[in-house]
C-alpha cells in the first residue's frame, strides 16, 4: 500500500478559491437583475460580453505566457462582472471588451496573477477607460423619460436629487448597471458575510465614514437627507461591499481593514467634493489599494503574550 507522507494538517476545510469567487458572482446577481430590469436587456449584454472577454483574455494570456491555465479559480468571471457593473448600460461593447482585457492582462496577470496584483483589476480598468472614453462612461440613459442626470450630478450643484430615497434604495434611478439599487447590493453583502466570504469590517468602516463625513459636512440644509443620498447614490455601496473587499488589494489584519475602510470613505467624500467628476469611489479605492501593504505592516495584531506597547 502506498501511503502519502505529507505535512500536517491532514484534513482541510471547505473553503476553496473557486467557491469563494462563485459566491461573489451569486452575490452580484441581485444588482445585475435590478440593472437589467431598470436599464433594459442591454445591461445584461454588456455584463455577459465583459465576463466572456475577461475569461477569454485570461485563457489567451495563460496560453501565450506558457502558464498553467488558471480559469478554474473563477476569478476572471468576478473581474469581468465587477467591471461591467461599473459601466453604463449604453457603453459600446468594444469598450467593455477593452476594459476586461486591460483588467485581466495588465492589472492582474502581469502584476503577478491572482492575489499578487496591487490594484483592483476591475477598478484599474475602469480608471483606464475613464481616461480614454470619459463621455461613453458618463452618459446615462433616462429612466421613465424623467432625466438622465444621475443623483450625483445634482448633488454636485449642490442640491438634493429629484428622486425619492425609496427610489434610490430600490434602484429606480439612472446610473451604472450595478450601482442602482442599494437594497440589491446590501442583499449581496449580507450573503457574502453569511457565507464568510468577506468580513463586514471594510464595508462598515467605508460606509460609516462616508455617512459621518457627509453628515458633518453637509452641503444642504438637511444633513440627514444629504447623508442618506450620499450613501445610497453613486457607486459607494457597490464599491464598499464588492470592490474595497477584494482580497488581493485590501489589508488582511482586522485593524488594517477598519483603517482601510475609513481611508476609502474619506477619500471618496474628498473626491466627490473637490474632484473633477461627481463620483470618487474608483479613485478612492485605487489609492487605498496602494496603501494596503503598508497598512498591514503597521497594523500587525498584538503579539500573543505581550501587552500593547511592551517589548520582548
Amino acid at each position, binding site marked *: 500500500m502506498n501511503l502519502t*507522507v505529507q*505535512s500536517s494538517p*491532514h484534513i482541510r476545510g471547505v*473553503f476553496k*478559491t473557486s*467557491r469563494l469567487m462563485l459566491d461573489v458572482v451569486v452575490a452580484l446577481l441581485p444588482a445585475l437583475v435590478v440593472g437589467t430590469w431598470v436599464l433594459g436587456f442591454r445591461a445584461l449584454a454588456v455584463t455577459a460580453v465583459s465576463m466572456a472577454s475577461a475569461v477569454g483574455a485570461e485563457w489567451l494570456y495563460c496560453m501565450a505566457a506558457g502558464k498553467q491555465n488558471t480559469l478554474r479559480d473563477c476569478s476572471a468571471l468576478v473581474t469581468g462582472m465587477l467591471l461591467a457593473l461599473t459601466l453604463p448600460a449604453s457603453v459600446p461593447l468594444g469598450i467593455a471588451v477593452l476594459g476586461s482585457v486591460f483588467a485581466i492582462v495588465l492589472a492582474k496577470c502581469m502584476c503577478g496573477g491572482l492575489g499578487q496584483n496591487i490594484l483592483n483589476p476591475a477598478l484599474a480598468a475602469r480608471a483606464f477607460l475613464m481616461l480614454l472614453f470619459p463621455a461613453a462612461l458618463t452618459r446615462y440613459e433616462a429612466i421613465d423619460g424623467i432625466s438622465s442626470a444621475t443623483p450625483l450630478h445634482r448633488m454636485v450643484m449642490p442640491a438634493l436629487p429629484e428622486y425619492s430615497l425609496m427610489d434610490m434604495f430600490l434602484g429606480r434611478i439612472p446610473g451604472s448597471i450595478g450601482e442602482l439599487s442599494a437594497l440589491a447590493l446590501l442583499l449581496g453583502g449580507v450573503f457574502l458575510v453569511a457565507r464568510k466570504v468577506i468580513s463586514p469590517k471594510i464595508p462598515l468602516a467605508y460606509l460609516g465614514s462616508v455617512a459621518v463625513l457627509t453628515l458633518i459636512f453637509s452641503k444642504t440644509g438637511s444633513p440627514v437627507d444629504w447623508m442618506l443620498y450620499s450613501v445610497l447614490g453613486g457607486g459607494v455601496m457597490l464599491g464598499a461591499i464588492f470592490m474595497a473587499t477584494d*482580497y488581493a488589494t485590501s*489589508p488582511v*489584519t*482586522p485593524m488594517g481593514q477598519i483603517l482601510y475602510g475609513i481611508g476609502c470613505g474619506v477619500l471618496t467624500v474628498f473626491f466627490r467634493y473637490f474632484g473633477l467628476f461627481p463620483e470618487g469611489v474608483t479613485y478612492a479605492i485605487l489609492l487605498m489599494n496602494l496603501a494596503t501593504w503598508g497598512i498591514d505592516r503597521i497594523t500587525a495584531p498584538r503579539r500573543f503574550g505581550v501587552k500593547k506597547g511592551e517589548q520582548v
Partner: protein
Amino acid sequence: MKRRFFGGIHPSYRKELSVKVTPSVAVIPKQVVIPMLQHIGVPCVPLVKVGDKVLRGQKIGDGEGLCVPVHASVSGTVIAVEPRPHPSGKLINAVVIENDFQDTTIPPRTYCQNAEAMDPDAILGLIREAGIVGMGGAAFPGNVKALSEIGKVDTLIANACECEPYITADDTLLRTNPEQVLRGMQILCRVLQPKRAILAVEDNKQEAIAKVKNLLPEYAGIELEVLPTRYPQGAEKQLIQALTGREVLPGQLPVSAHCAVFNVSTFAAIYRAVELGVPVTSRIVTVSGEAIREPQIFIVRIGTSFHDLIEVAGGLNDSTERVISGGPMMGIAQSDLSVPVVKATNSVLCLLKDRNGAAENPVCLRCGKCVCVCPMRLQPLYLYRFEKVKNARELERLHVMDCIECGSCAFTCPGKLPLVERIRSGKQLLKEAKSK
C-alpha cells in the same frame, strides 16, 4: 463571563466513529518494539541485551539528564536491540521483545497508598521511575516538568479538551476511569500546592462530564470547567488563556503564566505510578478514520505495531491515503506501519483522500482568513511569503517562532497553501540564520 482564546476553527469532529461504551483490550502482540526514546530529551541506554528474559514492568532502559526510563510491556525474551522506525519518522534505538504470553509482571516496587503522607520529592521520584511523560503528545518528562513548576504555579490544569478530530482517548479515560484522573490531580496538588486545580473538558464529551460531575464532591478543591468546543482549545497556551485569561509569554512555558498543564492520561498514569507502583506499559489509543474498517478504542501495550492494531480493527480500506500517528490536525503521517505505539501515541488514524484536499496549484488570495483563525495572532500568509524568498529578518519580525503548528491556517486556506510546512521550514531558516 467565559473567556476564550483567539482565533480557532470548527473542523468536523468525527468522534462518533470510535466512541464505544468501553475500550477493548487489543490483542497482545507476538512482539513488541520499545523505543529507547519516547520522551523529549536524551535517549535511554538499554539495560538489557539480546537473549535476556524480561518481565512485564521491568525497567529495560534508563539514562541521565532529561530522561525517563522505559519498561517492558510484555514478559518474554529480548531478541534484538537495534534502531527501528519510530512514529517521529526517525530511526531510533529500540529493544525488541518476543512475547512469551505468560504476562509475568514484576511485583510493584515502592508505592504508597496515601500520597498525602508522602513528601513531594518521593512523589516525583515515583513519577520518574514509572517513566511518565506528557501523554497528550508532547512527551515531556513528567517529573522534570513538575519539578520546574514547584512554587511557581497557582493553577494546575488537567487537559481533557481533546480538540483534535477523531481522537477519543481522553474522553474514554474520563468515561471509564475518572477517579484515576482526579486522584492523580490530588497527588500533583500535593507536589505543586496550587490555589486552583481545574479539569478542563470541551462540551462535546457530555458522558464524561456527567461522570466527573458525579465524583467531584469526593474530591475537594478540584473544579470542572466545560469549555465550548473549538480547535485548538487543547493547545496549552490556548487552554490557559481560555481558563485564566493569562497569556504565556513568547517563547516560554506555561509556568510563565503561573500554570501547570498536564493531559488527563498523564494524571491517571501518575496515580497508577504513585499509589499502585505500576509503570507506563500501556495506554488508551483511538484507532479511527474513514479508512479503517472497524474504528475502535483499545488499551494497547506500548510497543505494539501500528500494523497489528490496524489488523485487529478490521484492516485498511483499499483506498487508504494516509496513516497518521496522532490527530488529523497535528499528527505525523507514517510511511512504515511497523512503527510502535509509544507513550504519547493517542491515536492511529487512517484516512481516505481528503475531498477538500490540496489544490494542484496553491495560490494565496490574500483573503486573510489565516490571520483571523491563528490562535497565536500571527499572519501566516506573510510567513509563507517571506519563507518563500528566504527572508529570515522578516520572519523574525513576524514572530515565526511563536507558531504552535496547530494547522488552523492551512485548514482554512481556500488556496490550500502548505502553510504549516512552510512555516516550519521558516523556523528552521531563522534558527540557521541566527546560529551564523
